């Protein structure tokens, strides 16, 4: 009897059941186990150095060409280079349109916009009649180095213009600006644009009247609605029309050239950010206090708080600031510019720390605790932080910020 009761096959599952149901763990609670002093602390990081520098201007990430004068910036013109051959099969070259067997009936150069505009200003189309090809670089050509390229103004020939009145996107979200060429205007287009042997630039220049005092944009080459040119022509053979068709030429690259806001002396003293002029700033805080933190101190709060000293933002404008670290440390803390390459150091960013924040209530608050903790852990060797305007901002927005010291709060478990 006893043997059956305490049979092993019964007993161990019984123990297992007890184990599952009988464990309870409660915390032993004592009052004031440890003194709170030393577990939470804070200190201030003073600013060591700061500088403003001029990088290559950027008109942002938006795939647009800009026109008009806005926020102290003046549009000079936009350049659009077209393809040498049409996109149709078989491809036909621009210069082929000048052959004796080809009769060009008309041509249409057209651009698309998502903007609405009702202005008395005109938008004019020119052809660059330089004897050089590849006359601009959409990455590096800007207002400040125009003298390194051909004189676009004096090497341009007016082709046509249209009014910027009554422009409204339709149900597709776009309105189309059309330059139609017939008769004499078509002759100019063929002579000064199609003739790529004499004028190899095959580049249009678009220029708005100085009277356009607001921002107007058209879709650029990088958008899905890039500038195009459509040419209707006939091919004769033995005085017989063998083909009556059209060819479409596309843009290959384009650029807007702006006269950005002037860089003032005051800009160089503060934190100044503006994409159109390429102004960026670098801050260097004294991080020796971070170096002295013991291994297990965690930085729980550290914000870069900058007050807006002045800006050209208007109501409802949003301005995002990007902050990052630099690959290399800075040795020259004076103002420098890309224009004078000898003075400009390499300010490549270290994207392991990259954060963006919007200016709100005239203040910029950027959390940098992750940078400081990573710096403490040796993941960053440089203490410099670079600030610049986000590509999503209007490139013409300019802001000046005052700098403050950084309050750091840490804990040690």
């Amino acid at each position, binding site marked *: 009897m006893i043997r059956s009761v305490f049979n092993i096959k019964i007993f*161990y599952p019984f123990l297992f059941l*007890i*184990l599952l149901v009988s464990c309870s763990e409660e915390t*032993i609670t004592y009052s004031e186990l440890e003194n*709170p002093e030393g577990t*939470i602390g804070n200190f201030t990081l003073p600013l060591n150095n700061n500088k403003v520098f001029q990088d290559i201007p950027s008109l942002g990430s938006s795939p647009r060409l800009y026109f008009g004068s806005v926020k102290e910036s003046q549009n000079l013109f936009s350049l659009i280079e077209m393809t040498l051959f049409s996109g149709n099969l078989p491809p036909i070259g621009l210069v082929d349109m000048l052959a004796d067997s080809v009769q060009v009936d008309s041509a249409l150069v057209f651009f698309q916009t998502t903007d609405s505009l009702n202005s008395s200003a005109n938008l004019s189309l020119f052809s660059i009649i330089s004897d050089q090809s590849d006359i601009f670089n959409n990455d590096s050509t800007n207002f400040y180095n125009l003298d390194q390229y051909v004189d676009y103004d004096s090497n341009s020939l007016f082709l046509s213009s249209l009014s910027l009145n009554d422009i409204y996107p339709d149900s597709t979200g776009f309105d189309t600006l059309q330059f139609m060429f017939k008769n004499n205007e078509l002759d100019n287009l063929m002579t000064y644009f199609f003739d790529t042997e004499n004028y190899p630039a095959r580049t249009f220049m678009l220029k708005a009247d100085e009277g356009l005092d607001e921002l107007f944009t058209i879709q650029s080459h990088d958008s899905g609605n890039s500038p195009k040119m459509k040419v209707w022509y006939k091919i004769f053979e033995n005085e017989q029309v063998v083909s009556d068709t059209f060819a479409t030429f596309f843009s290959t690259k384009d650029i807007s050239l702006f006269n950005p806001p002037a860089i003032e002396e005051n800009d160089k003293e503060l934190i100044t950010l503006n994409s159109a002029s390429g102004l960026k700033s670098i801050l260097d805080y004294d991080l020796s206090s971070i170096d002295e933190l013991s291994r297990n101190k965690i930085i729980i709060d550290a914000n870069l708080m900058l007050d807006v000293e002045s800006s050209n933002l208007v109501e409802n404008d949003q301005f995002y600031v990007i902050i990052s670290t630099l690959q290399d440390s800075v040795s020259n803390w004076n103002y420098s510019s890309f224009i004078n390459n000898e003075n400009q150091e390499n300010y490549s960013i270290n994207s392991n720390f990259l954060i963006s924040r919007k200016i709100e209530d005239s203040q910029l608050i950027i959390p940098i*605790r992750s940078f400081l903790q990573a710096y403490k852990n040796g993941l960053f060797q440089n203490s410099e932080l670079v600030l610049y305007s986000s590509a999503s901002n209007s490139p013409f927005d300019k802001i000046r910020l005052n700098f403050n010291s950084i309050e750091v709060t840490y804990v040690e*478990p």
Partner: protein
Amino acid sequence: MLNRKIIIILFFSFLFSQNAMSGYGYGSSNDHSSPMTAGLSNNLLPSFKNNVSLSNPASWHNLFFTYLSTSVNVQESRFDSRSSTNFDLSNFQLIVPWKQKMSFGISVEPYLSRELTVSDSTLSTFTNNDIFEFSRVNKSSGGPSIVKFSNGYKLNESESLGSSLGFVFGSSRYVKNLIIDGQSHLLQSRDFFSGSNLDIYFLTTRFKFRDRPLILSASIQLPLSSIDIENESYQAFLDENNNNYHDSNDFPNVGQALLPVVRNYGNEMKINSLNLGIDYQFNSRKHVQFQFASSKDSGEHILNNSIFSSYIESSENLSLSYAKFAKPLSKDRYNFRSSIYFKNYSIKNLENINEVGLGLGLGVVFGVVGNQIDFGFNVSKKNGIHLVNEEMVHTFSIGITIGDLWFVKRRET
């Protein structure tokens, strides 16, 4: 089949054991690893059979069969009007006697238990014009185990020797959690234990008192190699997702954290002990027992990685017991045990602890090979525990010992 069940229980074992003594040093030791020793409060003198103690290899030659023994216990600890109930495996032991001359055994049991959670009350502090509500929770868990290889040898009709070679292995964890405004800041470390010790046992039945047998036994424990500790200390982090695990969602994330600092601490624990016991069988199968035990830890305790920042330097234990054993192959199948003991712990730099305890035990013998199921109950009261002062511990243990003719050559018919 039996082995598989035991493995399942092992898997869930060594969890949740919690008493205030676990806060000293590297945890609390389990003085009474089986219900037999729990009832008698000693480990040298007969507790299993009339002349056998499973915890004294010098007595194992009196066994006729191989025995497999395992036990579990439930412990309730009360302090500061709180209680904690825990369950763990006490031991697992296999003993193989050989021709009533020699014996061999292997056992696994917890060596130290560090299962303890201590928290303090929520406090407020002002830092950098902010108010922080914070509390601290210190938690240790796990603990090393010991595997023992033992043997006993009968010198002559009266004297016998035993030895036990124990290897300490395993790890424990320690987590300091600083909770600030509900967010956990964890500092984790892990201790890996390694060491070995040698227990030598002597037992003699040479003496008699009033023609009744006296059993005298002694044992000493010597550290073969002191217990060394490899401490891995991980960098503190903010547990953003409150899962008590350092992962990519925490701050700093696991990829940005510093590698753990590994330090080796030699000679952290060096335990010498001496046990002296005398058993007088004043009537048939009725015993009165007395044991004195002394233990001293001469380890360096440089790491001192304990919740109470102190450790037990030495302890002395006196126990007085009464035991009545079953008569083999009769209707008297019950073993009865009772005891009272006094223990004193000397704590380094803190108040000494006094303990008084009572033990009760009941064993039921079944089967021709003397299988036995044992129940033990132990109640003890400790005074002088750091911060708690007084603790009452109730321990109920249950064990089963199965005998068989394992490893005995069968006769062929």
